[in-house]
């Protein structure tokens, strides 16, 4: 018998364990060795070794754990009960593990009674072993379902278990799971890492780290899970995580196969059943789903986690209504389960059912006050109550009270136009009103979307509910809020007309394509990185385009996937006509997989389509591919283009303008369609401006603004130079483009209004004058007066009178306004 040297560990005085021929007869060593085997998914090994030894407490306990891994709840219950009936070091742990099983089998009240008894006993004990501390931690976890504060007691007890026995890995693993369950990824990660440090090769710990990566959305998640599953193929949990990730990548065949494999290992694995159920639902197989549901419920009568997982999976497939429906079923069965309440509330919010969503999240939060997502979302909803809504014919624009009027002024007409344009093109009309929320803090948008701050996206579409950053949420030039809104609205069409069954890549690709069609310069355009990826064969084939969105290997994969997807859509439209896109969407609506959907719409196999698209891309980018180095993994070597750019910058720095122009001109000829903010065209525009050659500067600026929808400075300079050259119309267009990057500059709006008035564009003049008023300038009376003039010029004398009276109420002595008032009343000014 080996006595551990760590304080708090009691030597196990277990008599009668005499199994000749076994590796170790020491019950402590036996438990540790076989627990390690269980943690590696070697369930059969444990069962084999301990076969026939159920009467021995250590063996019985381990066999019970093996039964839990296999989902054999009754056998586990019986074995734990037997161990719990025998005084000894595993008694309390067996008792509480049995209670945990009771929670799953629908006897939560009995489980809590047991947990309470165990907790009281251990709390009053003079000394506790590490196993007792572990048992106490589990007891507090169970009690935490109704007394959330006991979550902290659980953490403390588990910490003491860890401190008491450095090889009791279960306590570390429990800590990790508990913390991850409370959305505390950093501490969960530390706990799993500690477990792995103490037991290198512990598959459950590796899987825990992979789940943290999944939570954090890290690109290496899939490979981490795969690695863990490879190391411990007997663990159902890891396989279920892979199934979930396959489903998220819309690879339903693989997801189903893996879910079934996990269920084969553990017939009570709720996550695996949920993925199986979700796949069946997505395929329209309601009968199959109900069968799966019945089978699971034969083991677990009220599986809230199952419904929460289904709702999560469906939500990630953008099936928000179905997600809310199944979450509601879960709430009906497990009314107090915070996980399923959260799933219901979250999806209701996505559907625009704000009050009901808020109520369910509040209920969830009252039961689990450590839930960061719910806390953030409820705080956001409190803020949202102070937001204002402005309605147009088919839209509700929701924004911060001090800017929503300004934003709606520009965005309302744009969205109405977008709706008409897209409805004609897609021959479909999403349900109105469409709600669009504009967040002035990116963190709020992020919380609205994923419950946590830190999301990189600009906007999101839940169907007829859209959310996005307001232009004030980001640095000027970071994005184009008009094209973003157009993009998100396009999703409402592609999601709606396919019953939300459009693959992510296609929905994103079409949205980007629609941006490009909407206005000159909008939408993603070609970059050297894209060309480098094409040249380096780093782009995914069409059949795996989704991977770029859901399983990016590198940070830039998502950006590349957006543009590539949009090019695929462009290819389809230009080669087969837009009707082929509508047919493709119809095929997805009818539940077709990607291959058959393409076969039905364009008559090509995926292999042939991949080949033709690749050829189309290489033809289209043949020019720049000659001058850009290939992307290898995530690095690009210096190509001719880059060398020319660097040369140009060097010459410019040395004030050698002729040489700089020559270098940038060379670069420009290599890749004239380059859309980066610092393109050759941008530098050439600057250089020609410095030289005073305004026509040339304008030509290059026009190219910059045609290819880059967020280049605020280029648009402002273009407007200035065009105005100087007498091109008022061009100047106004440039200012209008700048407005979609940042609408907050009073002087810019005034300038645009003046140009519009000069050109007789009265509607535009009114829009920009109204924008000035909405910006609450220092000169409010002046702003109202100018708006009155704009209305007067448009022939709307009543509106002019209303506005001039506002001006005069603010500034009664305002002479010009007085004259206008008299004029409007019919007198001479």
């Amino acid at each position: 018998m080996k006595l551990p040297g760590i304080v708090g560990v009691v030597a196990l005085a277990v008599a009668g364990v005499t199994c000749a021929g076994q590796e170790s007869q020491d019950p402590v060593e036996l438990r540790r060795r076989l627990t390690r085997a269980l943690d590696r998914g070697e369930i059969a090994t444990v069962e084999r070794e301990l076969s026939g030894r159920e009467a021995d407490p250590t063996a019985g306990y381990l066999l019970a754990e093996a039964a839990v891994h296999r989902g054999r709840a009754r056998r586990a219950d019986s074995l734990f009960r037997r161990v719990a009936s025998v005084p000894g070091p595993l008694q309390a742990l067996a008792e509480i593990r049995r209670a945990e099983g009771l929670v799953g089998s629908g006897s939560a009240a009995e489980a809590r009674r047991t947990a309470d008894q165990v907790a009281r006993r251990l709390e009053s004990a003079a000394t506790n072993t590490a196993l007792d501390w572990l048992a106490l931690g589990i007891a507090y976890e169970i009690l935490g379902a109704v007394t959330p504060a006991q979550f902290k007691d659980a953490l403390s007890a588990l910490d003491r278990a860890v401190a008491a026995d450095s090889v009791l890995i279960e306590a570390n693993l429990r800590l990790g799971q508990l913390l991850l369950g409370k959305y505390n990824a950093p501490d969960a990660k530390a706990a799993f890492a500690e477990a792995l440090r103490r037991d290198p090769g512990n598959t459950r710990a590796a899987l825990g780290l992979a789940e943290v990566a999944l939570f954090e959305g890290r690109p290496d998640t899939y490979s981490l899970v795969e690695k863990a599953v490879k190391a411990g193929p007997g663990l159902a949990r890891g396989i279920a995580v892979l199934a979930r990730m396959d489903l998220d990548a819309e690879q339903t065949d693989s997801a189903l196969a893996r879910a079934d494999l996990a269920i084969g290992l553990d017939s009570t694995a709720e996550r695996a059943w949920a993925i199986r159920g979700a796949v069946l639902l997505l395929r329209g197989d309601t009968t199959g789903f109900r069968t799966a549901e019945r089978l699971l419920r034969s083991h677990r009568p009220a599986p809230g986690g199952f419904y929460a997982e289904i709702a999560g999976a469906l939500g990630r497939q953008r099936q928000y209504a179905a997600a809310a429906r199944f979450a509601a079923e879960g709430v009906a069965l497990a009314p107090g389960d915070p996980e399923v309440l959260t799933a219901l509330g979250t999806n209701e919010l996505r559907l625009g059912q704000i009050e009901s969503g808020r109520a369910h999240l509040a209920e969830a939060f009252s039961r689990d006050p450590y839930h960061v997502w719910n806390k953030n979302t409820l705080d956001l909803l409190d803020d949202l109550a102070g937001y204002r809504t402005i309605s147009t014919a088919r839209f509700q624009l929701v924004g911060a009270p001090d800017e929503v009027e300004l934003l709606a002024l520009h965005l309302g007409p744009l969205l109405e136009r977008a709706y008409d344009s897209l409805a004609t093109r897609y021959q479909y009309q999403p349900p109105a009103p469409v709600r669009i929320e504009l967040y002035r803090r990116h963190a709020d948008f992020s919380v609205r979307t994923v419950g946590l701050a830190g999301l990189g996206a600009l906007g999101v579409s839940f169907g007829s509910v859209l959310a996005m950053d307001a232009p004030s949420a980001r640095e000027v030039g970071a994005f184009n809020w008009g094209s973003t809104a157009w993009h998100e609205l396009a999703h409402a069409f592609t999601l709606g007309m396919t019953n939300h069954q459009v693959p992510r890549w296609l929905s994103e690709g079409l949205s980007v394509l629609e941006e490009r069609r909407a206005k000159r310069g909008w939408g993603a355009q070609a970059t050297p990185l894209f060309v480098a990826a094409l040249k380096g064969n780093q782009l995914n084939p069409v059949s795996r385009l989704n991977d770029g969105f859901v399983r990016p290997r590198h940070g830039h994969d998502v950006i590349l996937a957006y543009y590539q997807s949009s090019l695929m859509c462009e290819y389809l439209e230009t080669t087969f006509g837009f009707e082929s896109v509508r047919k493709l969407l119809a095929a997805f609506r009818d539940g077709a997989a990607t291959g058959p959907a393409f076969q039905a719409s364009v008559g090509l196999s995926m292999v042939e389509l991949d080949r033709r698209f690749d050829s189309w891309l290489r033809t289209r980018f043949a020019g720049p591919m000659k001058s850009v180095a290939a992307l290898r993994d995530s690095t690009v070597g210096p190509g001719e283009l880059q060398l020319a750019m660097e040369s140009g910058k060097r010459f410019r720095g040395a004030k050698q303008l002729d040489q700089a122009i020559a270098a940038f001109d060379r670069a420009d000829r290599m890749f004239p369609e380059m859309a980066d903010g610092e393109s050759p065209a941008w530098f050439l525009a600057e250089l020609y401006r410095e030289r005073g050659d305004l026509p040339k500067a304008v030509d290059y600026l026009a190219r910059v603004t045609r290819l880059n929808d967020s280049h605020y400075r280029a648009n402002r300079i273009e407007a200035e130079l065009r105005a100087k050259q007498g091109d008022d119309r061009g100047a106004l267009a440039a200012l209008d483009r700048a407005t979609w990057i940042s609408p907050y500059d009073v002087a810019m709006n005034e300038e645009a209004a003046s140009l519009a008035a000069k050109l007789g564009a009265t509607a535009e003049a009114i829009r920009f004058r109204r924008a000035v008023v909405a910006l609450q300038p220092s000169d409010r009376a002046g702003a109202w007066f100018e708006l009155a003039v704009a209305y007067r010029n448009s022939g709307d004398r009543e509106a002019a009178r209303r506005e001039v009276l506002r001006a005069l109420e603010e500034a009664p002595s305002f002479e010009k306004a007085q004259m206008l008032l008299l004029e409007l009343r019919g007198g001479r000014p």
Partner: protein
Amino acid sequence: MIVALGSLLFAVQTQVVVVTGLSGEPQYAAAWAKLGGSVVDQAKLRWGVGDSSLVYLSENPAVDPARMTGRASRDAVLAAIGQVSRHTAKNDVVLLLLIGHGSEQGDEARLNLPGPDLTAPDLAQALRALSDQTVVVVNAASASGGFLKALAGPRRVVITATKSGFERNATMFGDFFVTALSSDAADADKNGRVSAAEAFQYASREVARAYETGKRLLTEHAQLDDSNGGALARAVGFALVPDTVSSDPRVSTLVAERRRLEAAITELRGRKARTDSTAYQRELEHLLVSLAEANQAIRAIQRQTP
């Protein structure tokens, strides 16, 4: 103390003292010289301030000898205030504009000048000589907040660019305040004069907008103290165009009518919240039209007068 506010609008003389402090960097020296020069030009061209009523002290008077009257030492500033007090009449308006870098040592706010700094107590002591005048002190320096309390008093409008000595970054407030003094945009009530309150509001708003546009944390919070509940700051102002006085009795009558209408509008606006909106709008429009007609008549007479 109640100030006869109406008197501030008419027939008072304005004295102007501009001080630009130690710049530290050429960029500040150039920017402040431009600001100071702009105030001096406006004072001469628009407010009718004669050379004898203008003091412009700077770190280096050689930069702009046509406008700058001396070096901005502590003693020179205090002497200039003493000089103004001797030449100014009762009820005149004195504008003291301080531009520069400030600091706070202990509880003592300072403006950094060549030689000893100018402290808030120094200035408070000197301004006692101007108890019969309306004094507008604008300290646009960084860390200027401590001047507010030290200088507050009867017939004083005190404006500082920051709320405390802890706001030590170079400020933008002075730029916008000086812009406001000559800007139609700052003349919110369009009466042809920019009041101290209007200039303060304009500058504060534009500072906030500039920081917001630049996505920078606002590090200067301007403050205004008025010994008369804000009324003094609203009353004391600076003309955007030179005042002209007509001797035509018809104009005098119309001007009296105009004042009556303006007072009626002010009174009506005061009870807006308690008035039915339709009735309010009707009465407002009636008064505004009458006011517009009165002004139209004044202009017509002035056009006829050679």
